[in-house]
């Protein structure tokens, strides 16, 4: 009785090992199925919802939708965003708060998307760019609004 | 002096020097390693005499088996990494005296025995050794062979008895799982 169990055990072990070896061999003899992407040569396909960095959207007239309300700055858990505001004079002669510099520190951002959700005018969004390496970490502190850009008319 | 003789003296010097070092070093692991080199030297001497079978057995049994066991025992002893204290002078003196006495005794015996000179070539082939081992007539070693095998069997049974767990005795599962 013991002997039968012993022999069964040995054969069961050999069989299960053979199943495992067949699996690896099947991969070995089909080198075409390799899933490695050779990154700098082959660009990976990035999903649209991928969060790479925060961008401030500008249209063709170099206008953006940011009112400088600092809702994103308040929403950010890490203090990644710093909004510097200025006062513009409207054509009617009234003083109005407007965006001066949108400072974004990529090194501190965790891509949590809270700033995008907090924005009342949908001025910012998450971009899919992912190659952020630089030689100087100061370059990771970015100014998101373009030079000379202004707020799109009609956005309050 | 021919190359043959130079080889002999080289091997002999290796055996003696490493043997001396193995008893004088104060680190126990090094002592085991010197012993190992000494035993390898003895195997080399057998190769020099062209009795390859004995040489291979010397390596397999002494170097591969016994020295490994000694090293394991050294690993398991406490404070085996420290240097051992110097032996008291009286002990050193008696050790030297007994070694000298042993050496003198061996030399005396070797000098007094007349080694017969034989001209025929020694046939130390494996098949010859095997046949002699199982031969019951003259020049046969069947009886010693069997006696040694029974001795080894008894030793093996003894090992199993010592290592065997008492079937009634249960291992505390808690200790194994949560040390």
């Amino acid at each position, binding site marked *: 009785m013991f002997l039968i169990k012993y022999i069964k055990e040995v054969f069961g072990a050999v069989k299960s090992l053979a199943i495992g*070896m067949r699996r690896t061999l099947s991969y070995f003899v089909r080198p075409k199925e390799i899933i490695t992407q050779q990154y700098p040569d082959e660009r990976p396909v990035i999903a649209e919802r991928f969060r790479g960095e925060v961008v401030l959207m500008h249209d063709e007239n170099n206008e953006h939708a940011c009112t400088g309300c600092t809702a994103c700055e308040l929403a950010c858990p890490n203090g990644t965003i710093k909004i510097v505001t200025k006062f513009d004079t409207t054509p009617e002669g009234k003083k109005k708060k407007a965006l001066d510099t949108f400072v974004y520190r990529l090194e501190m951002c965790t891509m949590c998307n809270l700033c995008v959700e907090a924005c009342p005018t949908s001025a910012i969004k998450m971009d899919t760019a992912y190659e952020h390496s630089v030689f100087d970490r100061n370059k990771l502190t970015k100014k998101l609004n373009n030079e000379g850009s202004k707020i799109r008319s009609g956005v309050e | 002096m021919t190359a043959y003789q130079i080889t002999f003296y080289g091997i002999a010097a290796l055996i003696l020097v490493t043997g001396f070092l193995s008893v004088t070093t104060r680190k126990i692991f090094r002592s085991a390693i010197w012993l190992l080199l000494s035993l390898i030297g003895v195997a080399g001497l057998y190769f020099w005499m062209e009795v390859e*079978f004995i040489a*291979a057995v010397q*390596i397999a049994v002494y170097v591969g088996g016994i020295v*490994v066991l000694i090293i394991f025992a050294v690993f398991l002893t406490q404070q085996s990494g420290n240097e051992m204290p110097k032996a008291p002078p009286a002990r050193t003196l008696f050790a030297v005296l007994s070694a000298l006495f042993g050496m003198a005794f061996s030399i005396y015996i070797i000098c007094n025995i007349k080694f017969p000179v034989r001209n025929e070539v020694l046939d130390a082939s494996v098949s010859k050794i095997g046949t002699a081992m199982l031969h019951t007539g003259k020049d046969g070693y069947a009886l010693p062979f069997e006696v040694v095998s029974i001795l080894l069997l008894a030793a093996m049974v003894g090992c199993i008895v010592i290592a065997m767990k008492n079937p009634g005795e249960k291992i505390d599962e808690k200790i194994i799982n949560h040390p």
Partner: protein
Amino acid sequence: MWSLNEIVKSTDLKLNELFKPGMVFFIEAIIVALLAISLFAILGLVLVLMERKVSSFMQVRLGPNRVGPKGMFQTVADTIKLIVKEGMTPDNADRFLFHLAPFLVMIVAMILLAPLPFANGFQIWDINIGVLFVSAVSSVSVIGILMAGWSSNNKYSLLGAMRSGAQIVSYELSAGFSILAIVILSGSLTFSDIIQSQANGWWLFKGHIPALIAFVIFIIAATAETNRAPFDMAEAESELTAGFHTEYSGMKFALFFLAEYVNVFIVCAIGATLFLGGWMPLHFGDNTTFNHVMDYIPGIVWFFGKTFFLIFIMMWFRWTFPRLRIDQLLNLEWKYLLPISLINLLLVTVVAISGWHF
């Protein structure tokens, strides 16, 4: 026909014309040493690359592919990196033994090369106890590992060395028994005789099922004796960082690494010689036409082909099976492999005495 045997003989004759016999021996020893060292270097480069490529294909990866065409010079680059690295010695290490250990492991691997027949008549030393010599000398390599583990003054190294010692000492038994099976069948311990006895078919086919069982046990025991996964308890990365060579760096580490691969080559070469006929071409009984065609392939190609096939099988094991625990490892040897190989030895004896093999 072109053969290595002729080259060896003609070189010997040429040297004998030019020099005295003593000088000839000296020159030939130097030539053999140079050949052995260059074989080691090439083996190290080729086997490491082969391992990385095989592992990557089995894991649906590409493996090294940047240095040289298809990554062929990757190991050369690695070697250069290892040579320029600093060799460090830990504090309180036993310096003498620490430096001696990698050389001891390497020397044992070199001595094991001596009785291997690479082709017909192309063998360093056709010693009359070839198989016994190999199994005796291979047991010395464990001492190098124990020495390295002890002298590093590191508990991981020591644990790795002790595991390795227990493993090698126990698996030597079943490896020895499976080798003995072939010795019984061929009736000789000499490598050249064992190969000649396979002129009409390899022992793997001629010896029926007992030879097959012996072959499987030999492969398992050889994998364990060379400390390779799934038996890499000695250097289990996830448990012991690197086991006995944790503290080694630079060229001394490279020596351990090289010795591991050379040992793999040697055990596979022994397996190929004993079970697959070494340099003997594939022959089937008295089928003369088939045998004649096979004879056109030179012996050294057969030898290296068979050896690399066995090496591939060992790599296949490594990248398929998970590592065993130390108690499972010893269970496998003492409760399964050893009893099976003992009974198998009995079966082989019955087959050999009653002449059932072809």
